[in-house]
């Protein structure tokens, strides 16, 4: 029966090519724009580290003097060096790392010096965030303690400086100081760069990784948010009243409550030590909570998605109107079919099949338009442009959306068509 309906649908669509083309085009436009924006949303709101995002927690605390504390304020994103080092010493998580962004000028043996983005962090950073290494290994915790002049560099920088060969043991010249390369990263990009969103939320990973203690020792320049109260002639000093370090901890599922308890105790201890009298505040957020809290999906992207969905709605209204016109124009034909014994159900299904065919055609064209739309998005000057792509799930979703919306659009016209009174319809012509 389905084959027969399909045949009828194709014949009917062929009869009025202009109207069919308009319907397909309208659905395609709606589907194309919706899928473009939904794909951007899907990519941007995705889990950057699936499988581990529930075990990694960002630690935030309000432990500054009373003068800067306001009840109701959110705890700041970063920690001071004093607090970060205290938490690192206690090491209550499975793994933990304090970190900061930075930049340095690297002087190659030949060629012009180049400015590279850096991250100053601890040995745990690499296993914590599943960072793959192509050559060598990450530095050890003892390197952290000894402020060893070691570095891990990105594959990209390795290609630039050493032609992509194994550069472990080679030297990275930073001004008059030097760092020994101990590892080279494999392909690694975190998008969004959730561990530190303050230096651009999307983009390539940093090019040089150096122990935090070493970076402070070498007076390398930091980048990102630096918030100081009181006098801070050297904001990087161990006891400077400045918050600038991101702190991440890895915890097994049952350990979360215990860790929160530990942080509560830490705050209480600081209170007793006389650092402040306000109640303090502790926040422990896993990766997805953290991304949500920071509103990583740009509000423009959200707005674009709603616009596109609204547009799809209007396109569907349009399709409903056109299908209605199409079906009712064939009243006499449908009347003949009814008179010859077709049930209402059969007419209804026949009309829906026709709507579905239009929807699928619209889906195919819509997919092409979405491809075009994504190409446009990739050429936009946004920092997330480069890695927007359509995956299999969104591809299937395109057809599901096209079919579902065309069937939805077909329901009302099909119902009207099925209720055509056969006698009147035949007589009227």
């Amino acid at each position, binding site marked *: 029966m389905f084959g027969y309906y399909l045949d009828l649908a194709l014949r009917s669509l062929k009869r009025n090519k202009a*109207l069919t083309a*308009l319907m397909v*085009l*309208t659905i395609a*436009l709606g589907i194309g*724009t919706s899928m473009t924006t939904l794909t951007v949303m899907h990519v941007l709101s995705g889990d950057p580290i699936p499988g581990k995002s529930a075990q990694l927690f960002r630690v935030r605390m309000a432990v500054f003097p*009373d*003068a800067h504390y306001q009840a109701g304020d959110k705890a700041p994103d970063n920690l001071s060096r004093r607090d970060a080092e205290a938490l690192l010493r206690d090491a209550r998580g499975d793994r933990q790392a304090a970190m900061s962004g930075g930049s340095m*000028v690297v*002087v190659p043996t030949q060629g*012009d*010096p*180049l*400015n590279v983005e850096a991250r100053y962090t601890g040995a745990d950073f690499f296993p914590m965030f599943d960072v793959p290494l192509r050559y060598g290994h990450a530095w050890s915790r003892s390197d952290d303690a000894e402020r060893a002049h070691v570095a891990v560099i990105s594959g990209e920088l390795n290609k630039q400086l050493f032609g992509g060969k194994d550069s472990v043991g080679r030297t990275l010249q930073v*001004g*008059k100081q030097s760092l020994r390369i101990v590892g080279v990263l494999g392909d690694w990009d975190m998008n969004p760069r959730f561990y530190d969103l303050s230096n651009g939320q999307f983009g390539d990973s940093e090019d040089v990784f150096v122990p935090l203690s070493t970076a402070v020792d070498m007076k390398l320049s930091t980048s990102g948010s630096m918030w100081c109260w009181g*006098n*801070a*002639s050297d904001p990087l000093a161990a006891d400077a009243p400045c918050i600038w370090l991101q702190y991440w901890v890895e915890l097994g599922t049952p350990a979360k409550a215990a860790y929160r308890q530990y942080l509560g105790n830490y705050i209480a201890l600081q209170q007793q030590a006389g650092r402040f009298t306000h109640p303090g505040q502790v926040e422990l957020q896993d990766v997805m909570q953290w991304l949500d809290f920071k509103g990583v999906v740009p*509000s*423009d992207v*959200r*707005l*674009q998605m709603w*616009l596109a969905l*609204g*547009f799809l*709605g*209007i*396109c569907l*209204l*349009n399709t*409903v*109107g*056109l299908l*209605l*016109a*199409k079906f*009712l*124009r064939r009243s006499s034909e449908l009347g003949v079919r009814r008179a010859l014994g077709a049930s209402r159900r059969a007419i209804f299904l026949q009309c829906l099949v026709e709507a579905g065919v239009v929807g699928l055609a619209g889906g195919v064209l819509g997919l092409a338009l979405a491809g075009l739309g994504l190409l446009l998005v990739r050429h*936009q*000057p*946004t920092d997330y442009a480069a890695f927007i792509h359509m995956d299999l799930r969104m591809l299937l979703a395109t057809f599901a959306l096209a079919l579902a919306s065309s069937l939805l659009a077909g329901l*009302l016209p099909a119902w*009207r068509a099925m209720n055509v009174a056969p006698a009147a319809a035949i007589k009227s*012509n």
Partner: protein
Amino acid sequence: MHFRHILSALARHRMAVCLLVLEIAFSCAVICNALFLISARLERMRRPTGVDEAHLVQVRVRSIAPGSAGSIMAQTHTDLAALRAVPDVTHVSIVNQTLFGHSFSASGVSLSDAPKAPSITVTQYYGNAQLPGTLGLKLVDGRWFKPDEFVSDEQMEGAGGTVPVIITRALARHFFPSQQAVGKVIYAFGTNRIVGVVDRLVQPRDSGSAEAYEYAMLFPVNLSYAQGTYLLRVRDASQRAAVIHAALHALKTDGPLRLVSPKDATTLEAARAKYYRNDRAMAWLLVGVCVSLLAVTAVGIVGLTSFWVAQRRRQIGIRRAIGATRGDILRYFQVENFLIATFGIALGMVLAYGINLLLMRHYELGRLPGYYLPIGALALWLLGQLAVLGPALRAAAVPPVVATRSV
């Protein structure tokens, strides 16, 4: 023309009419809001900075092996002299943060030194005596800094300073709504007396509330090249590229090993265009949405009206046979479309207002000004009339003889 006849004819196609009315209503609502969003973006992009944007270029030098503070400062003076010697350069200065740049330096500022005094965050520009002239700032009250008031960065950040400050008119109004600001004291870095007020200077990037964009402070600080960016004011805007080229060359040939790269040099206009590129892209996207919406709505109107014309061929023939002119038939469909569009627009106004309320709740957007509604209405009336013209002309061309034919 009898509206009543048209209305009763429409009542026979209730469902199709409702669909058309809904489509026009949604289009009208979305277009009103999209136009409002576009104008909000354009307004944002047009905000002046208060500096002479057309004639400014900037070059940043990154130090590689910073020597002693004294040697860096000596090199900075050499650089400043070399840059001043570049043809077509009228002013050279060094500033801690550039407009539309990535770095943003700010402090809490209050009107009292009590520990819990309410404070607001205000951005601060550090620069030498040439900075106001380089930026082209306009003094509206008080004076510029005196030569003996300039300090080093270390002295500035040190405790309990009494460095004077120049603030923007917007900040002066915020702190001293009805009084003269010059002579008053604010507390940012120790105790800072206001010696001058400039007409306008804005934050490097948007931060905080919309009003805060125009809050800025200027401090008399002599920076070294390691702490800031060179700013050059060019006499002739067409010479900016040449000046950048000459400045890079001058900085490269002189001084210790450091990173002087074209990547770190730009005109202020280019920096502005880069800063607002997302807004520009969004505005174009909204324009695209409006055009597509109008196109889709037009398709809907053409489709349904064509259907009605085909359906009523016989009736049209009869009307023509009993004396209606072609003009009468044409006008019938035009008035019919006008009525449908009017219903759609009326509903669309309500929807536009509703969408605006939603936008206001979730985005930083004001109330939709009333004049967008007539603009949207006019657009859809015009669109309706244009879309209906084709089918209506076809209807008018139906010959009266159709009335006498059967099937």
